[in-house]
């Protein structure tokens, strides 16, 4: 199976603090890959390295075989990686619908951004339907409940037609039913060929969702594999429950 992203031998430090030490993993095509680990383990740092916000000290990040390390964030986004944020970042002045239009604009030529486009409108409608936010299309996005805002953020990210979708704690603020809906939506997208990398604290949600998982602790990867294997891994159990468990 081909890998959409290869994250190899990455070190990232901030001053004297090593946020990531020699972290490597691959993200297979059309799979949901999860990253779990305690707070401060380096999960969001991985996202920031992939999206170009940080420049690591060492390592390589390849998207479909092309090195993307060192590219400006907007170039990485246009190359096909889109993300959501742990602390939601929606555009404060915009309605849900405007988010759907905007996220499709940057990849098209200038002239087509000025002219109305039926293809863009149709894709926008599809995105809202997919994440169940059509009913709030004309509301200012940041005025919506937290869980709905997360869906708007995911719809915005998916509207960019990414090759790889990064989700940072997508079920935070959602109740059990909403999380279950989201699981089905994400698995549906995977079945259509989308590759997803997801960070989440909710272990049970991740076990049901992911095809593969990687476990981080203190900036190092301590385990990787199928969810069932991860669950039995002694290093993982030690990290989550303490050394004596």
């Amino acid at each position: 199976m081909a890998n959409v992203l290869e994250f190899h031998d990455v070190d990232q430090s901030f001053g004297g603090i090593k946020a990531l030490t020699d972290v490597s993993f691959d993200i297979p095509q059309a799979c949901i890959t999860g990253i779990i680990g305690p707070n401060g383990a380096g999960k969001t740092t991985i996202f920031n390295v992939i999206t170009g916000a940080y420049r690591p000290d060492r390592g390589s990040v390849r998207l479909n075989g092309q090195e993307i390390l060192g590219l400006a964030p907007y170039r990485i986004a246009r190359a096909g990686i889109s993300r959501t944020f742990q602390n939601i970042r929606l555009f404060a002045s915009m309605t849900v619908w405007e988010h759907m239009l905007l996220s499709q604009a940057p990849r098209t030529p200038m002239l087509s951004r000025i002219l109305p486009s039926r293809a863009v409108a149709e894709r926008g409608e599809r995105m809202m339907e997919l994440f169940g936010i059509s009913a709030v299309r004309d509301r200012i996005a940041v005025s919506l409940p937290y869980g709905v805002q997360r869906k708007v953020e995911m719809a915005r990210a998916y509207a960019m037609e990414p090759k790889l979708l990064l989700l940072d704690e997508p079920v935070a603020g959602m109740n059990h039913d909403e999380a279950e809906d989201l699981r089905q939506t994400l698995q549906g997208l995977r079945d259509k060929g989308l590759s997803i990398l997801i960070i989440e604290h909710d272990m049970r949600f991740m076990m049901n969702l992911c095809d593969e998982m990687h476990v981080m602790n203190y900036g190092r990867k301590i385990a990787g594999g199928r969810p069932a294997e991860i669950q039995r891994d002694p290093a993982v159990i030690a990290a989550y429950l303490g050394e004596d468990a």
Partner: protein
Amino acid sequence: MMSSYQAGLVADGSILLLGALSVYVILSTGQLSLGNAGFMAIGAYLSSWLTVSAGMPLTPAIVVSAAVSAVFGLIIGFPALRLKGLYLAMATLGFGEMVRTFFLNFEPTGGAGGFSGMEHVPLWYILGWTAFVLACVMICERTRWWLEIRAVNDDELAAGLVGMNTTVTKLMAFMTGAAIAAVAGALLAHQNLYIEPGNFGFDRSTEFVLAMILGGSSLAAGSIVGAALLIMLPELLRDFVDWRIAIFGALLVAVLLVRRQGILDRNVFGLAKFWRRAN
């Protein structure tokens, strides 16, 4: 029939509206420019020189001036990319003063003595340019390109991560604003028939900002209201001669206290849409 006094007011209002729009386009990306009188001076002097000394017809002269001013907008825009908020406002203020001082000392365009010899333009010509620029801005407001401009203002980092080159967006806004201010300057020169560096001081730049903020800084239509008010109020308050500036100031403070977003905002139009749908 309009008296020439009224026609003068309408012309002044139109030019003020263009100035307000020039600030509005730049502010829509979250950048406050206090130096647009500088771009206006470039437009005024260059277009006047082109029509008087080079014998060029006015319309192409305005287009050339706007283009040259846009290039200056690009040059000013680059350092502005590294500055935000107050610091950017200071830098643009400095630019405005720099242009004014340049023309004060530049003898070929008259220096402190000013420049004259332009032919008077009819009111419809000024209104035509104003309507054209206003229409362009209002059409742009409905496009996805404008959403990008707003995105830079809302959250620049998130804008980058949806694939926007925010540098290009900000520079384009600066260039557009500079071009619009130059058109305003060219029209002013061919309306007043005499220009001097003092026409393009800091007070002119603040007047633009004031008109836009008073009318509503989140949409172009706000600038129409703001420019109209700014032109009309001193006339309406004429009976209070000595106090009219003070009354004007108090009104301004009151509007900003009650409606920080200005008199118009996007919701005003949103309500109209809602109304139509409900019926």
